[in-house]
């Protein structure tokens, strides 16, 4: 299936979501069309996967917080600079509260 058709069908099912996202690299507020979501932020790949139990590994691979409220997630500027970065977004109002590069914010200093 073509990507355009897929995107169109997705928008029919999920409704149109149209964020404005400030790319921290391009320093511009751009339409969501240019970006792709890349999952919850601060889920580090375990240093030694082989040492983990099946449960611990499954937690890393499958389980997400599905948080209601302000939520840090990864986005990539697919049709722009192709950089991955961090977005703090309210999953209730969809307001973008903060954007950051990976260097500035990490799981320790994120609020």
């Amino acid at each position, binding site marked *: 299936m*073509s*990507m*355009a*058709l897929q995107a169109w069908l997705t928008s029919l099912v999920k*409704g*149109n*979501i*149209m*964020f*404005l996202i400030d790319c921290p690299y391009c320093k511009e507020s751009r*339409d969501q069309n240019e970006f*792709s979501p*890349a999952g919850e932020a601060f889920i*580090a*790949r375990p240093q*030694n*996967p*082989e040492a*983990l139990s*099946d449960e611990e*590994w*499954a937690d*890393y*691979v*499958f389980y997400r917080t599905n948080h209601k409220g302000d939520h840090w997630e*990864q986005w*990539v500027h*697919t049709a722009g600079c*192709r*950089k*991955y970065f961090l977005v703090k977004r309210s999953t209730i*109002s*969809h307001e*973008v509260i903060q954007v950051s590069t*990976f260097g500035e914010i990490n799981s320790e200093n994120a609020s």
Partner: protein
Amino acid sequence: MRIDNHKSNFIDYSQPLSFIFNNKSYKGYQGDSLASALIANNVRFFARSFKYGRKRGLMGAGVEEPNALVSLEIGGRYTPNMKATEVILYDGLSAVSSSNPNSFDFRAMIKPLHRFMPAGFYYKTFIKQKVWSLVEDSLRSLSGFSKAPSEVDEDVYDHVFQHTEILVVGGGVSGITAALEILNHSKTARVILVDERENLGGELLSEFSTDESSFVWHEDNVNKLLKFNNEENSRLKILTYATAYAWYDHNYIEVLQTHASGQSTQRESVQSARKVLHKIRAKEVILATGAHERPMLFETNDLANIMLSQSVRRYLEEFGVISGRKVILYGNNDSIYSTAVSLNNNSINCQVIDVRAPGGESEIVLKAKDSGIDILQGYAIRKANGTSSIKGVEISKVELQPKPPHWQSQWRLTKDLQTLECDLLATSGGFNPVVHLDCHCGGKTYFDEYSQSFLPQKNRKNRKVCGAVNSVGFWRDAILDAKNKAQQSLESMGEVKKASIQPLNKECSNYYKVDRFFTPIEILNKPKVFIDMQNDVTTLDVALAIREGYQSIEHIKRYTAMGFGTDQGKTGNINGIAVAAEFLDVPMSEVGTTTFRPAYTGVDFGAMAGREVGDFFDPQRYTTIHDSHVESGAEFELVGQWYRPWFYPKDGEDIHQAVNRECKSVRNSLGMMDASTLGKIDVQGKDAREFLSRVYTNAWMKLAPGSCRYGLMCNEKGMIIDDGVSACINDHHFIMTTTTGGAASVYSTLEMWLQTEWSDLDVHLNSVTDQFSTVAVVGPNARKLMEILCQDVDFNKESFKFMQWRPGRVCGVNARIMRISFSGELAYEINVEANYGRFIWDQVALAGKPWKITPYGTESMHVLRAEKGYIIVGQDTDGSMTPMDVNMNWILAKDKPFSYIGRRSFSIAALNSSDRLQLVGLLTKDAQVVLPEGAHIISNQGISIGYVTSSYYSSALGRSIALAQLKGGLSMMSETVLVKIVQEKQGLKEIPCEVSGSVFYDVKGEKVDGNE
């Protein structure tokens, strides 16, 4: 009929237009809507209702209209389900009713049975009784409105992206005022003003037509706006005949604008858009969307010529038409008096019935009394008389019970009955602020007892509401409200330091003194008290829904279908909530509203698609060799966005004949293929080798420069996501190839690992898919051909081995020649700079003539690789298959220090279960039967235990071959399984097949060095 000597700001009587409705010709004037022109021509019935097929007339004058659905034009210009009230008349217009009120209708014929068809009737009768399949076809043919279009839309539609500081939705008094206030107090702010009508002003000139100063204000302020609009580099954009139908996140609003003339774009020399979809991003939104009047409820309130009071007034004042000579006005507020005065001024006989008891009359009521209009206060209409069209009403006196029981209404109707005659009834039950848009994106409503309406929530970021949507009904109050809100917007944008606010008093939020919802139980308990005209929902349907346990208004809505359809319950929904509140015995605020979702009004699919149709639907990618394929008469196949040659038919060959010929040439002599579409990623950096080793399952540390290696890529779940060959250029430089369809996602995933997890690795990626052209030379004679084309490379099989690459000059062009094979034959892939692709292709074709070199397409490529059991990721795997499932344990490195992507998952118990789907070969017992791809393998119990993923006829083997995913298949070698297929004319058939290994041809792999 048309009023004689009517003066209108909107109708141009010097420009008569002719049009056709339901196959009859009529005349109208420039400025008419289809609805007003039909009223002028005394057309009374517009359509039949959805469920019962009842004849219906007009009720409204704008987008709120539930009944008058028509389809416009025919053929490629056919547009279904337009409201006659929103179609602006043009010369030559042709329209038909969505369901013709003048022709036979089965639904109407079964009239005596209607009382046995309440909400849930079809479900209970047919679905629960399990006979739905028998009646579905005939019932479906009865349902729906207009017929769906059957031809390609011949019009063009445009998308326009707009950016603005302020978007004002609604061009009535409040909208005009707000826009001007912003423009006057800011030097930079851009403003877009949107209104669904053709002219600005909203209800002003009909609602307050008796107030001369309203005309003066209108002319003055519209002129001011136009002055701004006509300036050079104007900051103001006025979009009329344009409806803001959806509000999405971050103030993104979509507006559909209709080409005002409505003329066929085909008749004009330049094709201009019939409709334009404006995609507006605004910093601040000011909603001045107004309010819709709601009707009163009584028995058979759906007869033709029962309209909304506001609509009657608008038809009269704006269009100079009226559909009756003896009018009764009925309601619970002062709006009906304003209409009465308008009618009286035009010498039309009218009478007012007000459910409110006498006392505390406002100015307009006294004015109506003074004009000698017959007024009955404290009376209610029980029933409308007439068969299809109203002939009169039955009224009773209203009494207030001293102590209302709980939340139920306190009215009781006395037993005395009076009958009054009329041919037009105009009702008003109060006003529903148009909160829809505000609610699309999270806005909430609250029930305001004072104005008896659901109002938009008070404070929302970057949004203001003013005028009637904020329950400010009187135009002079609305001006103040709009100025205040515009000032607040200016303040929040920093354009003014402090908003200047002129306070409004409380009374202005119920200017018409709307009384409580009039829902006496004597009326609600009667049959045929319609709430939702479009879906034929009655008060008894709501009562039934509640009796059957549906308490939430969202459930009641879905059970009764109240508020569905193209009008989305604009007139009926709030009344339905009041009825539900009455039956549930709870306050309105506790019932709440249903959720308002986009779109507010119907949107053409054509407008959504815009110019992105046909060739522009999706980007199309072509290789630089494409023209040659076209010249050779190739049939093309879409792979991702690439147009790849599928097969090259010769002299009337069909696909099977062509593929058999192509395969034979490759196996016996020489073939050539355009492999340019494969994804290519340039991987450079000190840690390039380490990087490949982390993302591929096999070992890369010892791959020498000049060599290539096949790699399998998995995700962390352990599932195969891609495969391809990577060539080592030097220790810090690799060229990775990916599948054609997976190129973009693989590139993106690799970037993700580098940027988010492994920023310490010195690796840079670049997509070079489009930068290289690849011509594959395949077949036992490939070496002989290469030796002719390229002199500076030693093609001896000992010095240039399988899975190696060499730099060289092919016909004078710098090339990387890779000895890799996707067919099992001796093969070379010549990679050159993309612009040389066509040249190399032609040179190969020319030099290959002695060996009858044959170009082959993707279909032959599939057959050749299937004969060798090479998988295609995405065809033989589906994202739930591990390397073990496809019998490729050999590619899993055991001793890599870094736990590569996916490795940890391989040891999870579930992925090692013996009854997982596993890739095997299938050989049909009857060698000539080719299984259809997707066919299921069934167990003795008839349960699916797998399915066919690839299936072809192999000319090399003289039989059919198939690859399949089979539960525990790898331990079922040589067993017989059954594949269930549907054969033409023979129906279901079970085909016995033998489970085999997945390599069918040259099992020992002896052909890869050629036949020397």
